[in-house]
């Protein structure tokens, strides 16, 4: 079997079963969430940019950019594939700039993490591991069937969570 490798960007998502790698780069203030079921061997990754879809000023917006709508959709997608007992791993939510950012987005990394955590709590999905906050950008890989998340930062150290 050819191993599947999927790379996603901001406001994108991918679901994998049994074996393969999900990957995202360019993670600054954004948060990468992986929901997975290690019994039925399904996992889905999403790259979230903002905490709350109610802040979208347009009616036609990409729901995968916002924590609340993105997680609801990813959850539904995984359940449709037969996933049951979901767990989560999350990474990202850094503060990349100290000054050069519009006021309303200054604490966006922290708010993204809070929104994700809050949604997962309400859905009774446990956060098994996380690497969030700080001031550094991240690149994230999640591999099946090990369900291990590799988080790389500029200092070249790779964390396994």
């Amino acid at each position, binding site marked *: 079997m050819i191993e599947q490798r999927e790379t996603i960007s*901001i406001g994108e998502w991918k679901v994998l079963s049994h074996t393969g790698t999900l990957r995202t*780069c*360019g993670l*600054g203030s954004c948060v990468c969430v992986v929901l997975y079921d290690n019994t039925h061997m399904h996992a889905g990754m999403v790259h979230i940019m903002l905490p709350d879809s109610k802040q979208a000023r347009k009616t036609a917006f990409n729901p995968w950019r916002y924590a609340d709508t993105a997680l609801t959709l990813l959850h539904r997608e995984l359940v449709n594939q037969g996933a049951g007992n979901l767990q989560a791993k999350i990474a990202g939510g850094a503060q990349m*700039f100290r000054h050069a950012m519009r006021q309303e987005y200054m604490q966006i990394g922290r708010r993204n993490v809070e929104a994700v955590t809050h949604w997962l709590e309400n859905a009774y999905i446990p956060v098994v591991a996380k690497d969030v906050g700080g001031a550094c950008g991240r*690149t994230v890989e999640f591999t099946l069937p090990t369900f291990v998340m590799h988080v790389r930062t500029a200092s070249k150290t790779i964390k396994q969570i």
Partner: protein
Amino acid sequence: MEQDLLKEVANISTGYAATALSTLLQRQVAMNVPEIALHEMEDLPRLSGYHHEVCATVHAPIAGDVEGTMFFLTSMDTAVRLVNMVLPNVVNDLDVQTYPLASSAFQEIGNIVIGSYVTAIGSLTSLTLYPLVTELTIDIGSAVLAEATYQLVEVDQFFLMETAMRVKNEEEGMEGFLLFIPNERAVSVLKRALERDRP
């Protein structure tokens, strides 16, 4: 049409920026023909050249009549060599991150390049625009660029104006990238200002 206009703007502004860099470094600086392309927001972290590498980036929000985001971005190798051209003490990779004089020197190079670019747009169009507080970030290039998406939340597509500048007569390529992402409204403001000046 918009693309041609922006190209004209980018050509002239980058010329100014390259001249300023050349004066500062006391060396000849060459520039590529600026590339103007319409992108989807999702493209930002994927843009070629600075994907996964650690880069030195000076980032400046642009305010005034024309709003947007500017980046001056180089590889760490280029950053070190640039700093060594303006400082008496030789610095290395780590110094650019930890030695305040070295990081200020790089940030100042970025300020000068960005400042000249923005000033050129101003004189060309008789509009007022200026960089707000600039910031030096040493991190994965794609993660730094991705932060510009927060200026673009409400738009689906954006113009990226990009130029590569090269210090001439350096054996290994010494290259810096100048990126300007005008906000949606900024593009039409620029267009109107340029058309007004035409008979």
